[in-house]
């Protein structure tokens, strides 16, 4: 196989749980050698988070963890031990990138802050992905995806008018905004490093990429001095635009009309005799309540997948609200793209993992392997990268350094 785009890039990875681990997964799936530094004394919390294979808890049995850590290697080492720390520093010396999503100050306390890393390797790129950034009055606050959603405005902005906010229903910032922004920043810094030989420190506050993705509401508030009301599923310029209940238990379809032709096709398909003023976009935008009310009973008697096919055949933007079961077992497009990858894993068998949402023509990017078992590559890394002998490794294991 051809070289992957990030072949030859090495990452010493202290990141864990959500956003950090998902960021370095992107690098690993694109070909970087990502060495996950772990400790059996203080486990990555996702290792012990459900769901588990056969509902049996174990450090190598979490599907959540495995999906977030594909293509990486795992090394267990006690960095609070002097020998352990010196091994990690030797890895830093031969790495391009050091990543973490700890609270500010933790890496410095371990002896692995940016200035210390730079003294070992001036080409090193360090990224710290703390909740609020490295400094400032709230820098010492702790947070997770959901609380980042709350302080960034995401939670507030999602919901139906007049109802309590609902957010995305997930730790959204952990899954898309932060991993992708972090990976992009690191790769841009890598370009600078390759051109100039100079590394650098990257400080990414996990609130900020999320706020960037809410820019229209933020700018609207700043220039028009208002907090825009929650809009539910409606959007300016498209009407009707909503999610309608179909026949059966909790079956729904999203329909979004962008022009008059799509509107006429929708009316024909569901048998709606629309009012005259609904023929134009302006007329529809002005009368959305009545349109939604007229559509609801006509859609409610239809099967959701059958209606989607019929509307798409007429060129109407419509999509079933698919559940996790639907996207995994029913969706022909995701199947065509081989989105779900069964990767062999010693304790989990053939567990299902996400492929990346991009395909390259010349090379086949990852996931290349399931997540590593805890400490799976400790010996291999010590031998091949750090040049330790079997006896030395055994001694370090005995001394509790490599655990």
């Amino acid at each position: 196989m051809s070289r992957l785009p990030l072949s030859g890039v090495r990452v010493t990875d202290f990141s864990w749980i959500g956003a950090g681990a998902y960021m370095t997964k992107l690098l690993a799936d694109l070909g970087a050698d990502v060495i996950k530094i772990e400790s059996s004394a203080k486990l990555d919390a996702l290792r012990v988070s459900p769901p588990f294979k056969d509902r049996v808890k174990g450090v190598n049995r979490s599907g959540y963890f495995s999906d977030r850590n594909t293509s990486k290697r795992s090394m267990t080492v006690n960095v609070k031990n002097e020998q352990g720390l010196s091994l990690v520093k030797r890895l830093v010396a031969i790495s391009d990138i050091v990543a973490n999503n700890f609270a500010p100050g933790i890496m410095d306390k371990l002896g692995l802050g940016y200035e210390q890393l730079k003294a070992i390797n001036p080409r090193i790129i360090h990224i710290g992905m703390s909740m609020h950034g490295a400094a400032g009055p709230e820098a010492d606050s702790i947070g997770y995806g959901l609380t980042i959603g709350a302080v960034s405005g995401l939670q507030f902005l999602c919901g139906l008018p007049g109802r309590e906010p609902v957010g995305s229903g997930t730790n959204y910032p952990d899954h898309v905004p932060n991993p992708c922004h972090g990976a992009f920043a690191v790769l841009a810094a890598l370009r600078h490093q390759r051109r100039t030989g100079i590394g650098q420190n990257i400080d990414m506050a996990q609130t900020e990429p999320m706020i960037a993705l809410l820019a229209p509401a933020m700018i609207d508030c700043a220039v028009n001095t208002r907090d825009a009301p929650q809009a539910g599923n409606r959007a300016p310029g498209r009407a009707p635009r909503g999610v309608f209940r179909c026949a059966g238990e909790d079956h729904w379809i999203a329909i979004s009309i962008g022009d008059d032709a799509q509107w006429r096709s929708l009316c024909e398909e569901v048998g709606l005799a629309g009012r005259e003023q609904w023929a134009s976009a302006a007329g529809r935008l002005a009368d959305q309540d009545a349109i939604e009310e007229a559509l609801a009973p006509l859609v409610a008697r239809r099967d959701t997948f059958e209606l989607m096919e019929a509307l798409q055949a007429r060129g109407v933007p419509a999509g079933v609200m698919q559940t996790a079961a639907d996207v995994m077992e029913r969706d022909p497009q995701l199947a065509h793209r081989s989105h779900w990858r069964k990767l062999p894993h010693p304790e989990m068998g053939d567990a299902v993992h996400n492929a990346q949402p991009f395909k390259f023509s010349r090379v086949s990017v990852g996931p290349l392997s399931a997540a590593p078992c805890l400490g799976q590559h400790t010996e291999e890394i010590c031998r091949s990268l750090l040049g330790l002998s079997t006896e030395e490794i055994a001694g370090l294991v005995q001394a509790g350094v490599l655990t």
Partner: protein
Amino acid sequence: MNRAAAPRALSGLRVLDLSGAPGQYCGKLFADLGADVILIEPPGGSPVRREAPFIADREDPEAGIPFAYLNTNKRSLCLDLERGKDRRVFKSLAARADLVIETQRPGVMAKLGLGWEALADRRPSLVYTSITPFGQTGPCAHWEADDLVLLALGGLLSLGGYAGGEPVAVYGQQAYAAGSLFAAVASMAAVLGAEAGGRGDFIDVSIQEAVVMALENAAQFYDLEKVVRGRTGGRQSVAGSGQFPCKDGFVYTLGRGISSPQFWVSTVRWLNEEGVEGAAELQEPRWLERDFIASEVAKARFAELFVRFSMLHTKEELYRAAKARRIPLAPVCAPSDVLASPQLRYREFFVPVWNDFAKRAITMPGAPYRLQETPWRIDRPAPGVDQHRSEILEELAAPSRPEP
């Protein structure tokens, strides 16, 4: 360091951005770190210029807020790719470009003779990224979709909204954002690969698949435990973690943390020390059992106790008190709260950017990351329609442009 003189991480990189709404954030990420990004607009300008909200609610393409944000640092050139002359201009630009980003339907660019293969003939190092709703091929590749339809088909819509009620889309065209973001990471990696090895690549991004990446652990829950996650809208995920009303709005607390009981122990101590009536029962061992804390009974009881306390306090008071106890509780902030945040002010996160329509600088979200040596920076506001035509054509006429 003098910021204005600092080197740019992506200087010398030439990007042609033909995108509409699904891809303009991708181009912005490159432009704001110093790449030369030319936004190729259709005659009359990008449709994104007509997207709301507008400055002072003036429905004028010059006043559109999303366009002004998504296109900072880019230059504008209008080309009608249906015309041979304009196609030749585009090909000449592509012959010296590092990256093309486009969001046309599958096959459209190839039919115009502007697909990756045609362009890579003249420029083997070219990376060409196509962002489409469903990818280039497959049974649904030609389906119609907007952001909402993609959130539905990507599964995220099934997790958002009120329990038992209507699913509610995540705000802010997040399907398009996800498509742009994954495209940016893949493109950047491919550009690095091309700079190291000389050969570019074609990257096929599916926005639907990018949305699937946001399903958290829902797919794995189905795979391993055959449990289909649904909408919890405002309700607790497990007893102790969720959104609760307070005196002036809502707070979101993760009293359960991720896996260790530490936040729960702290929460129980907090409520007891505050003398909340009935809080003593939270010390019973069943409040640590996975099945019990997932039950409706447990959630209802916790909410009853917590709300007794939270309704007496503001979100700010609750945040301060929880922070002192190291409990991850956050105020549910409106945009006005975010704009007033002392932390973001300290970091000078929001930046002023000149706006021709407003005839003043307007406030925008700034650097999403701080690269110490090669800072993020806005050098110019989003361009006017076709604003840079003459300088771009002049550069093309010159034999070759020196690396900045």
